[in-house]
């Protein structure tokens, strides 16, 4: 990470407890503009909870998170979430066509304007044909649905994409296709990517920075090469063996 530019998002000692259980324990991490940070960890390590703290879908118990040098609490939640957009693990399609899914925001935001050509362009960006605009979104494959979910987020013009195991339901070939798409989108749209995964091979290929999270603690951060020789830890050894 470069020292000169201030980080886009900065987490300082972020903890999250629920019912006396510590889910996140003093996480300190910085995310640079246009970086791709991968967080590796086994299921239940707190990765998804951490992502949800970043766009305030949940409130952390302790510590601070800043975005553009301002505490995230100082932004109205809806504005913050448009800028720091979460893409869920399982893409959720509302009943209706692809078009209705892409333009769902206009249900609550009268200022949300879109044109056919913008929708078509966005679909092309995520690797889909404009032909599917009027198809039933729920009839599409999970890979296509994940792309639509991505396109739906992009139409909000986000600055940061939070990816919660975005390819865990897809076969490895499709997973790489989607991440390739995200990589080129990130480049074209100046996006900052924060992705959690339990698949170290994907993180090694795409991430510019990685962190390893176990039991709510960030035990190691650095360039993707740290995944080649992680510090001794039973859980990491387990992760490395896990099939992708």
């Amino acid at each position, binding site marked *: 990470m470069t020292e000169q530019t201030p980080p886009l998002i900065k987490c300082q000692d972020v903890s999250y407890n*629920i*019912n006396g259980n510590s889910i996140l324990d003093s996480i300190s991490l910085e995310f640079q503009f246009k970086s791709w940070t991968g967080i590796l960890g086994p299921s239940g390590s707190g990765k998804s*909870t951490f992502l*949800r703290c970043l*766009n*305030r*879908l*949940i*409130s952390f118990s302790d510590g601070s998170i800043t975005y553009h040098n301002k505490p995230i*609490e100082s932004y109205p*939640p*809806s*504005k913050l*979430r*448009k800028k720091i*957009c*979460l893409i*869920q693990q*399982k893409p*959720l399609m*509302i009943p209706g066509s692809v078009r209705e899914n892409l333009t*769902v*925001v206009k*249900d*609550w*935001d009268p200022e949300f304007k879109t044109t056919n050509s913008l929708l078509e362009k966005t679909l092309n960006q995520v690797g889909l044909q404009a032909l599917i605009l009027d198809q039933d979104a729920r009839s599409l494959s999970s890979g296509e649905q994940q792309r639509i*979910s991505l396109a*739906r*987020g992009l139409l*909000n013009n986000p600055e940061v994409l939070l990816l919660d195991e975005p390819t865990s339901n897809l076969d490895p070939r499709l997973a790489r296709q989607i991440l390739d798409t995200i990589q080129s989108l990130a480049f074209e749209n100046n996006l900052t990517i924060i992705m959690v995964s339990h698949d170290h091979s994907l993180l090694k290929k795409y991430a510019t920075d990685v962190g390893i999270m176990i039991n709510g603690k960030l035990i190691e951060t650095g360039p993707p090469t740290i995944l080649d020789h992680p510090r001794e830890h039973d859980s990491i050894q387990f992760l490395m063996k896990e099939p992708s």
Partner: protein
Amino acid sequence: MISWTDVFVSLVLIGITIVLLKWWKIGLTKSLMWGTVRSFVQLTIMGYVLTFFFQQHHWTFMVGLLLLMSLIASYEGNRRSKDHPIPHYFLILFGALVFTQIVVLGAILQFILNVEPWYYPYAMIPIAGMIIGNALNSITLTVNRFVAEMEHREAEMEMMLSLGAPIRAVAQNSIRAAIKAALLPVLNSMMMVGLVQIPGVMTGQILAGIDPLIAVRYQIMIMYMWVTSAVIADILVLTFIYKQFFTSSDQINYTFFRRNSK
């Protein structure tokens, strides 16, 4: 005219029922006997209470009784919701029931029946009882369904919040499903009324010797009153409770969910 002796003779029907239940080893005989005694005692007491109120000539008695009925209904509704305790639910119910009566009962007494005085007990008390009972049933259905929908739609709500949706929009699908579910039985009975069964109020009036053509007019008014009071009460209650399912930072408030997942 039915006499008390006639009423006791009707116990023969209960006797037949008990024999059937025992014969088929269904159980429930104790509950049936308890229900038989309770309905007898409660309705008899109600008869005396109504007689007392019908003899009063001051509006404070009627309004007092209506408030008391609303309090009892709110207590009952609050008790039924202990599965998913909602803060201030008792007060919300009470407020919704009182408001619904002001609007619906007020309209009926003032503009439809044109009774004089406005608190004319023979109209006010039975109609208020119907409004409260129907509204409470409808509210219970609505709230149960609403909580279930919110739990079921967790992922959908998270998706919408992530796209910057305000909580009203996030709860909208659950609100719509809950009110639809509660209104369906009312709408079904509006469709079916008069085709098979003679509805309760009409049956009573016809038994009491009223011309069926007059009895239907009352019944029609009651059907309209029924659906209106259900919609007003349901919307009012949901307006007050949906916000409690979110925090002040527009997050899902998991404390109401039976399964505290986050």
